[in-house]
């Protein structure tokens, strides 16, 4: 089962997107674990994540996160900002799974 961790500044706004993505996953019938966390808290999930999705507002951390976590086999991407804004859970999930 794929594990996706959404990271934003406080883990607040991403948590709404997480619930939309979970609903989408159920509809699409894919087994996936999705959760949101604050950037300063990510270490908690670093051994338990396959895909890291960054909120666009902290997109500037992409390079650092890639350097740190790609060698450990995780995929890192920034969420498309319009999808993030309108909380398009289905599209974000689909793109994440295609990574």
């Amino acid at each position, binding site marked *: 089962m794929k594990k996706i961790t959404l990271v934003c500044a406080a883990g607040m706004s991403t948590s709404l997107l997480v619930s939309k993505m979970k609903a989408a996953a159920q509809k699409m019938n894919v087994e996936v674990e999705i959760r949101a966390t604050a950037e300063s808290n990510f270490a908690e999930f670093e051994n338990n994540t396959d895909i890291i999705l960054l909120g666009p*507002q902290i997109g500037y*951390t992409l390079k650092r996160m890639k350097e740190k976590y790609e060698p450990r086999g995780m995929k890192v991407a920034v969420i498309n900002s319009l999808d993030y*804004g309108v*909380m398009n859970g289905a599209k974000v999930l689909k793109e994440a799974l295609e990574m």
Partner: protein
Amino acid sequence: MIYNAAKIKEKMQEGMVAFANNKYIKSISDGMIFMMTPIIVGSIFMLFANLPIATYKNFIDVHGITFILKVPVTFTINIMAVLSVFFIAYNVADQFEKDGGMAGLLALISFFIVTPMGEIKNNNHIFNYISFDWLGPKGLFVAIIIGMVTARIYVFFVQKGLVIKMPEGVPPAVSKSFTGLVPGFVTTSLALLIFIIFKYTPFGSLNQMIYNCIQIPLEGLSASYGALLIVNLAIGVLWFFGLHGTIIVFNGIMAPVYLAMDMENLAAYEAGTVLPNILGYQFFRCYVFMSGTGMTIGLMLVMAFFAKSSQYKTLGRLALPMSIFNINEPLIFGTPIVLNPFMLIPFLLTPLVTSSIAYIVTAIGIVPRLNGIQIPWPTPMILSGLMEGSWKIAVLQVILALISFSIYYFPFKALDRRAWEQEKKNSVDNA
């Protein structure tokens, strides 16, 4: 124009990467996030010790409950420098992927060594004590500096391998305690040296020197109206380019100063004297970040209730519940505000106008200064105003929300019209 803006965004992102990822800035910002827990806990006890209800206040005063309620305040807010020195050192070492706990411990020792002790003679006994004076908000900058320097020295020694190494097979807990020995001896000796040197300066202690030469001037600068405008503009411009301006500018740079100013207000509030500061951490929370950066409450209201296009109607209703808790990423990225010329002026102007009005009416005394109680940042408006000490603050928040509405109204309607026409065209094309 859009192309250029995208280019500027890229350039700014590169600059911000360097800045926001700076290990020291990040350590302060993360350290302050840790600190909010004890400070909010202390604030809540403070709130109950000072509820402005006469009969309640009388009751708890008479029965000695006030005193009890203030004990947790003493051991959260009034020792915030002690807590900060640990967490900042912890985070610096953590940024370098070294043992944060050990760095925090060493920094704590250094902090206590440089802090002046007092002596009381009672009969034939001599009691040594450390005044709370330097352990609370007044010691915050000493804590930041000692925390960063001690942790950096610790990291240096560990990186260079200048530590006592245990042979293989020794349990990690044991070898860990030996790793700290050499750097610990160095940082402790350095702190002792600083303590001795400063004893013979006119300041008497490092703490007094840093307070006089760094903390007071910084607070003076940050307390000015000019600083309010600059901080607001910087945050707004960064968000306009899609960067988390609040974390970068506010948490990373301004938070320690504004937090110290809030704590001064809180101490005065507790003592019943005049509150010294107009601005502070909660000033921004109450009057600038209310409903999210850019005071987007007005935008959210126009969008949710006056939009013609279904695109914005949907977005407005999606954003509404989050806006109540001061989260507005859906508006920022969904409208979008980012790189949208329609939104640039209202997004930058609204917080400037609302914070200026709040500053002026507070300065002339129509609305009281905020008592500096720290409340969780998702606390909804009006409630946050009431907790900061007065219904007048809550009323001001409502007025500022209406001002936000009036500033966002026309730019948004122009945007909405475009979206509506597009939708109409699409449905005709599809038909």
